[in-house]
């Protein structure tokens, strides 16, 4: 049996922009692990392959061991194809059995069970043709499977998912080094400190209201307070951080200041003071000192987000902070409005007041206006430098992916620049 994860290039994936501009949906985090890891664990299938939009394929191949966009992966075994938006916890469809296709209310395939014999009869021209043929030839099941529909679903589910993932991991105890004095509150069964972790003196780990998982090689500096549920990723460093409940911090991050119910994908810096709450921060982001987001409106009404800069989407939640794309950088004192959407590779220079809620990818926000700034190559040089500082390489494949993202995001950026130009001319 082979698990096939797929993230089709449909409009749906835009619900997760700017985070999915540069990665497949299943790489997003919620709790301790990614959505893909959860689906793989849930189905119990070790052999996996994946299909994603073509522009992501070359870069993603360097980050995964599984075959990427290889049609040959659709032969030679029984297949269990699962859309990455399916929530693993409630995915109760058995991997084995006769062929069938599970559809949502819109008739979109959420999963397909395709036996080796069935697969031989289906088109292998490309993945889309294969899925269409499966839908045309196999029995349909109208399934009510729960799905992730927007990035803020992940943020809002993070605390509960952390608890569930901690239980699933089945680890507890202290395997790293804890320098005294220190304080651990709550049950010791709710704390796991992995090998290679260094916890400096004067750190509080508060597991009274949820578990705390500190992964290999992490370093926790003095005067940090970590409140569970919480996950600190491999080789991340917390610098006197007020790490409130419900945070998932990916690998190789630097986190100081206050962080609450937020997800940081990895390799990002929020080194200094400033509050980030109910937010999702991508990779290679640098948040300047005192960068702060609002995650609650003064009237406690539900937060809306404008992913495309034009249409407000009601999140249904009174608490949503900022969605920040990969390689975004903020200056000191940046203030994000409630429900902000900051594009990948965006450069933000603070204005002293809350920014517009949507800033497009590759835009330079300067003097209160969206501009083209110093252009793409300057951004690439900075990205390459940031990556090299963490032992990662900016490759030709990476640049080709970002060139494609530049084109994908061009219409929204051009519109925002024109709007700013009109404002500039009117001054």
């Amino acid at each position: 049996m082979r698990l096939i994860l797929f993230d089709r290039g449909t409009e749906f994936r835009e619900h997760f922009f700017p985070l999915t501009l540069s990665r497949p949906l299943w790489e997003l985090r919620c709790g301790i692990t990614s959505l893909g890891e959860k689906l793989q664990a849930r189905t119990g299938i070790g052999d996996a392959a994946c299909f994603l939009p073509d522009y992501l394929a070359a870069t993603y191949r360097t980050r995964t061991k599984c075959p990427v966009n290889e049609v040959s992966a659709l032969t030679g075994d029984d297949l269990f194809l699962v859309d990455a938006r399916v929530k693993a916890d409630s995915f109760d469809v058995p991997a084995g059995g006769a062929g069938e296709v599970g559809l949502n209310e819109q008739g979109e395939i959420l999963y397909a069970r395709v036996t080796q014999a069935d697969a031989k009869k289906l088109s292998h021209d490309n993945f889309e043709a294969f899925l269409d043929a499966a839908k045309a030839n196999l029995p349909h099941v109208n399934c009510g499977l729960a799905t992730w529909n927007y990035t803020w679903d992940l943020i809002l589910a993070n605390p509960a998912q952390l608890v569930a993932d901690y239980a699933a991991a089945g680890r507890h105890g202290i395997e790293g080094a804890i320098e005294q004095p220190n304080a651990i509150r709550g049950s010791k069964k709710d704390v796991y400190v992995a090998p290679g972790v260094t916890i400096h003196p004067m750190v509080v780990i508060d597991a009274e209201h949820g578990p705390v998982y500190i992964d290999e090689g992490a370093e926790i500096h003095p005067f940090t307070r970590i409140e569970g549920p919480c996950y600190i990723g491999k080789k991340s460093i917390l610098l006197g951080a007020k790490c409130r409940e419900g945070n998932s911090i990916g690998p190789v991050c630097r986190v100081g200041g206050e962080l609450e119910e937020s997800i940081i994908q990895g390799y990002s810096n929020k080194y200094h003071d400033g509050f980030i709450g109910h937010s999702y921060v991508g990779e290679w982001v640098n948040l300047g000192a005192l960068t702060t987001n609002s995650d609650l409106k003064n009237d406690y009404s539900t937060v809306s987000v404008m992913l495309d800069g034009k249409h407000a989407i009601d999140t249904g939640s009174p608490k949503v902070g900022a969605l920040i794309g990969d390689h975004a950088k903020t200056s000191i004192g940046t203030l994000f409005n409630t429900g902000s959407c900051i594009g990948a590779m965006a450069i933000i220079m603070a204005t002293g007041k809350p920014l517009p809620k949507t800033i497009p990818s590759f835009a330079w926000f300067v003097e209160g206006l969206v501009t083209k700034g110093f252009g793409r190559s300057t951004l690439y040089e900075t990205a390459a430098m940031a990556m090299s500082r963490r032992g990662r390489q900016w490759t030709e494949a990476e640049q080709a992916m970002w060139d494609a993202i530049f084109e994908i995001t061009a219409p929204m950026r051009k519109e925002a620049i024109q709007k700013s130009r009109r404002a500039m001319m009117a001054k």
Partner: protein
Amino acid sequence: MATVAERVKAVTARVLRVPPEDIRPEHSFTEDLGAESVQSIELVAMFEEEFGIEMDEDAALSVETVGAAVKFITNVCKEQGVDVEE
């Protein structure tokens, strides 16, 4: 219609708040006219608006003097089919 040089001078004067009569072709935007990095971005934006063209940021920002800007913009206008008075 004003020439490209006159229009470049007018935009430069407006953005950098320098009297137009003080601007000469050999003047460097940064060293002689005091353009800060943020103003360079604004200059590129305003030149695009003035001439109705789209410039490559890297190429545009590498232009150092007013005279070079006139040549650069004239070429871009030709490439993009925009009629201008040389």
